[in-house]
């Protein structure tokens, strides 16, 4: 009897694994390069998430042998992924379409609150401070792209 339950002839060898690894490395490089180039917010998000998806697919299909696996494993992964999207998606749909001031104070949807300054004070809430990256340049960790 052979090694595993997998159907014969589909096993990957070390060479293929190394090729996948090279692809993953290249993709990591692409992400970093795009980040460095700073092509703008939406491009950065799209590239970063798109590349992450491709990388994840490579790992799942080749390293995790989804390629050779029976249908159940694939189904499991796909269903789990879809549920994650469902949870994120519907939660975001709610927050995006709510009565704006039902979102956390000073969040994006409060931007144009016409009565924000006159609204009754709320306990324990921080004042809306602008982001002030003042001493970042002197900071050792500072490294704006």
């Amino acid at each position: 009897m052979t090694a595993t339950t997998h159907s014969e002839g589909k096993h990957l060898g070390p060479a293929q694994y190394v090729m996948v690894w090279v692809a993953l490395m290249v993709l990591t490089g692409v992400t970093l390069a795009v980040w460095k180039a700073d092509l703008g917010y939406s491009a950065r998000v799209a590239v970063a998430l798109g590349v992450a998806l491709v990388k994840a697919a490579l790992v799942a299909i080749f390293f995790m042998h989804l390629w050779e696996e029976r249908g159940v494993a694939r189904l499991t992964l796909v269903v789990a992924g879809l549920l994650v999207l469902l949870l994120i998606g519907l939660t975001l749909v709610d927050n995006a379409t709510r009565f704006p001031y039902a979102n956390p104070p000073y969040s994006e949807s409060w931007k144009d609150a016409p009565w924000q300054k006159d609204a009754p004070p709320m306990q324990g809430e921080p004042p809306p401070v602008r982001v002030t990256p003042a001493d970042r340049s002197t900071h050792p960790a500072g490294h704006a792209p």
Partner: protein
Amino acid sequence: MNLVNEFLRKLLFLPLQASEWARQLDYLHYYVFITAMLGAWVTLATAVVFMIRFRRKHAEQSTPIVDPKPIHEAVFIGLPLVLFLSYFAIGYPQYVRLQTPPKGAIDVYVQGKKWMWKFAYPGGPNSTDVLRVPAGRPVRLLLTSRDVIHSFFVPALRMKQDALPGRYTQIWFNADLPGRYPIFCAEYCGLGHSSMLGELVVMPPAEWDEWMERERRSNQPQAQDGQPVEAEQVDLRGSLVDQGRRIAAVQGCFKCHTVDGTQHIGPTWLDLYGRTVKLENGKTLVADEAYLTRSMMEPNAEVVAGYKPVMPTYQGKLAAPDAAAITEFIKSLRTDAPTAEPQKGPIYVPVTGK
């Protein structure tokens, strides 16, 4: 229609309908009730008839295989689906109407707080636990909460909306039946949840206008439990008493202690200084500066009888001058003390509706 409405309303134990929206909602309620009852009882009666009709004759009785035709399953799926979707088709537009206040609605700010409702009207007047609205005019409520989630519920309006801490939710109504209706808190909020009761007073419009005018003229907003107001925040070097009040508010003392003598989680601060208090362990002592300070730092060492040892320690959170300021503030809270200048509550600015 009216008779049928009254009959079904009483049959279902529903309270009075104080707005047109409530009436509309009840019509949907009746529709759902009648169709669901019909469907349920037809199904259950069928089951009972089968149970009686097809009793077992002998132990090894064999039965035919009865498999459904596609039409059976189609009916089983189609009938309830059509019915259920009709509920949604009627109910959802109603909900949208409830969530969309009309232009020109009177805005009232509602603040839920353990365990009371506070209402503030445009122009300054405010009240606790009693919401007065004019009959026949739309009112928009902007709800918020001071601590945890509360839910503003008026059964007579069939209307409920959660009040969330730190942000606003809205709802509106147009009560058209003058009268007094209970307000409940429907979201569990702790010890006093069931006593967080309020009253909605729907007044004839002319009466309400008069009341409002009177309130505005004597626009002396009441104290909000010592909560700091903007005017106070500006003056950082106020008297020790004022500092004490501010620090106490920031530290959240008023979550448990009141300054007006009402019972809460902790003893009230009104007239506390110099009072002889009885402790949990039977001893008595006089609440002096030393005791008050000790209570902040080691709150559970000497607990006043009748209270739970739930206060967190402020050791390390309160600097010594701060503790002294709070003590001074407590000392200033005396019923026999001459009244200081009236405290200013937050001023609410009207909000234009959609």
